[in-house]
């Protein structure tokens, strides 16, 4: 199925004719106590230089695991197949030592929980300096001076004082800023942010996202924004990949995706966004729950929850196909009825929302 997604069609191409990051048919399986299951069942994705790509999906959909696998950060019992090319260089199967040179230097990654993503017994400055010195020949003193600059770059007040403080002396938002400072310490080409704002207050979320965006623009970073929040994607991403049960089910530009989603799952997601202008008693929710890993239904993984499902959906898993202006993995991608946003939802549906 990977052949269907061409970089030329997604527009993710830089001057050299190759996207910054190009993922094809990425699969991640885990062996556990004799049994085996696949958390990622084929992710195709391109990220161009300076582009912001959102990856949207529920918890357990494999969106984080897929990106961890791309960086060689999955646990020892993971089996990663497929292709992840970064600047034309294949990363899957690359020796650990070579991967370490790329991680934190060319590709940086930040995680969800700023409370636990910093080492509690090292000063913030020492942790940033460590990131620098792992990839650059600098003295500790030079690296600490650079750490102060980086803290200033992410708008932390009094960086000279803050640099020698410990994480517990920082607020949640400031910790995430420090984590971002650490991630951009070596001027990477690509930054993968895994739910960077989920653990933060709403007001702080906006600040962190604006810090990320301004850095992304200033440094010309490729940014992958993993989130379960369609609002974040709508406001900040250029393109979106929607992930369901370990697969990309739809990929499009943000405007296309929100205007006319061509996959029933995407439609359900968009319909369940609360709308201020419309007064409805109950929030729309997609009926049912995502399938458990290792117990996927036959055919399309979404069919048990899909209001458009027909017989062939139970038998054939639809490939991710170019349907004109985007990619969709639905048998009826081109024949779905026009989308009317939230009005799609019958009022009688049960309450609840898309949980992360």
């Amino acid at each position, binding site marked *: 199925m990977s052949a269907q997604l061409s970089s030329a069609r997604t527009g993710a191409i830089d001057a050299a004719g190759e996207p910054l990051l190009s993922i094809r048919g990425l699969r991640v399986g885990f062996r556990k106590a004799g049994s085996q299951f696949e958390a990622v069942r084929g992710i195709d994705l391109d990220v161009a230089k300076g582009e912001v790509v959102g990856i949207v999906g529920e918890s357990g959909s494999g969106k984080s695991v897929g990106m961890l696998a791309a960086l060689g950060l999955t646990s020892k019992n993971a089996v990663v197949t497929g292709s992840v090319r970064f600047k034309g260089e294949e990363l899957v199967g690359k020796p650990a030592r070579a991967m370490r040179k790329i*991680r934190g230097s060319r590709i*940086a990654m*930040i*995680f969800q929980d700023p409370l*636990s993503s910093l*080492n*509690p017994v090292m000063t913030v400055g020492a942790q940033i300096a*460590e990131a620098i010195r*792992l990839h650059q020949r600098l003295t500790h003193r030079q690296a600490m001076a650079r750490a102060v600059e980086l803290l200033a770059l992410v708008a932390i007040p009094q960086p000279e004082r803050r640099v020698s403080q410990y994480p517990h002396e920082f607020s949640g938002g400031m910790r995430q800023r420090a984590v971002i400072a*650490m991630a951009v310490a070596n001027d990477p080409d690509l930054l993968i942010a895994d739910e960077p704002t989920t653990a933060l207050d709403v007001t702080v979320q906006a600040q962190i996202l604006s810090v990320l965006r301004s850095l992304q623009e200033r440094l010309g970073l490729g940014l992958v924004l993993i989130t379960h929040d369609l609002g974040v994607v709508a406001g900040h991403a250029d393109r979106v990949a929607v992930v369901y049960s370990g697969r990309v089910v739809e990929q499009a530009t943000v405007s296309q995706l929100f205007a006319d989603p061509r996959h029933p799952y995407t439609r359900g997601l968009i319909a369940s966004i609360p709308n201020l202008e419309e007064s409805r008693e109950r929030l729309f929710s997609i009926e049912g729950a995502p399938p458990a890993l290792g117990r996927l239904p036959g055919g399309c993984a979404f069919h048990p929850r899909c209001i458009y499902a027909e017989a062939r959906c139970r038998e054939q898993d639809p490939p991710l196909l170019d349907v004109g202006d985007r990619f969709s993995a639905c048998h009826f991608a081109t024949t779905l009825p026009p989308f009317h946003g939230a009005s799609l939802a019958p009022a009688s549906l049960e309450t609840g929302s898309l949980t992360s």
Partner: protein
Amino acid sequence: MSRYILRRLIAMPFLVLGIVTIAFLITTVTKGDPLTAIVAEQQMSNPEVVAAAKARWGLDRPLPERYMIYLGNLMSGDLGTSFITKRNVGTDILYRLPATLELVFAAMIFGTTLGIVLGVLAAYFRNSLIDHGARLFALFGSSLPVFWSGLGLLFIFSVVLNWLPGPGRLDARLPLPPGVTGFLTIDSLLAGNLAVFKDALWHLLLPAFVLGWTVSGTISRLVRANMLDVMSREFVLTARAKGASEFRVVIVHALRNTMVPTLTVIGYSFAYLITGAVLTETIFSWPGMGSYAVEAARALDFPAIIGVTIVGGLAFLVTNLITDILYVVANPRVRLS
């Protein structure tokens, strides 16, 4: 940080007084009559001899008076005279304590190093052969009685293989190095006598291993459990995402975060071994505090018993203080409190 330590220091004299008081009172609640240790059996029926002995050792005075006298003497560093050796208890202890300290230090260095290394390896290679091996080693270390493991190892290494010397601190034919620290290994090095150093070290190996083994068992299990917890935290993933090597991730990031509970056990074990190495000292004929305590208890030698109890209590106080100070170094969050 300094205020935190100051508070500890201020509490110290009161704690010492508490230890002294309890140590003193322990001797009054025991059923045994100390006179049996002082007066020969045939003389016990002679009231004059008994009265003289009581007067000589102050046993005819009421308890509060004896307590005040003891405290007064203690202030001037006098721990009283042993019923048995008839020497000053302080002198006896100063002669015995270095032997025990040398043994305990060696055991702790060995036990801590091995415990941490095994714990880290067992956690990192969880459910592997290394993990199972470390578990077995720890199980034996903490469940084999030292009189069994000590005698067994003595038999194997000293009697059968003849690789290591038998019991004792030093070959009787070798001269004792001039006492500076009381540690034979250090004193012999200071005196530049390598032959004595080698012999003292060889004598130290087995008892230190036997004692250290029990400690390493506890520490390795504790480190393993804490490492498993810490390795699953997000900052470990962050460190990997930075491009840090596995060694760096494990040692610099994870291990340091397991140090606080480990320090507690190390401190406690150290203090415990100072008076608790009785069996090991007996088996290896080690002239230390443990064997002194046993002799004193057997003979109802009250001044010696009180002296040993006070030293043991002080050992706990001092190691606790040092552990508390090390907490601050290991865990910056303590500094706030």
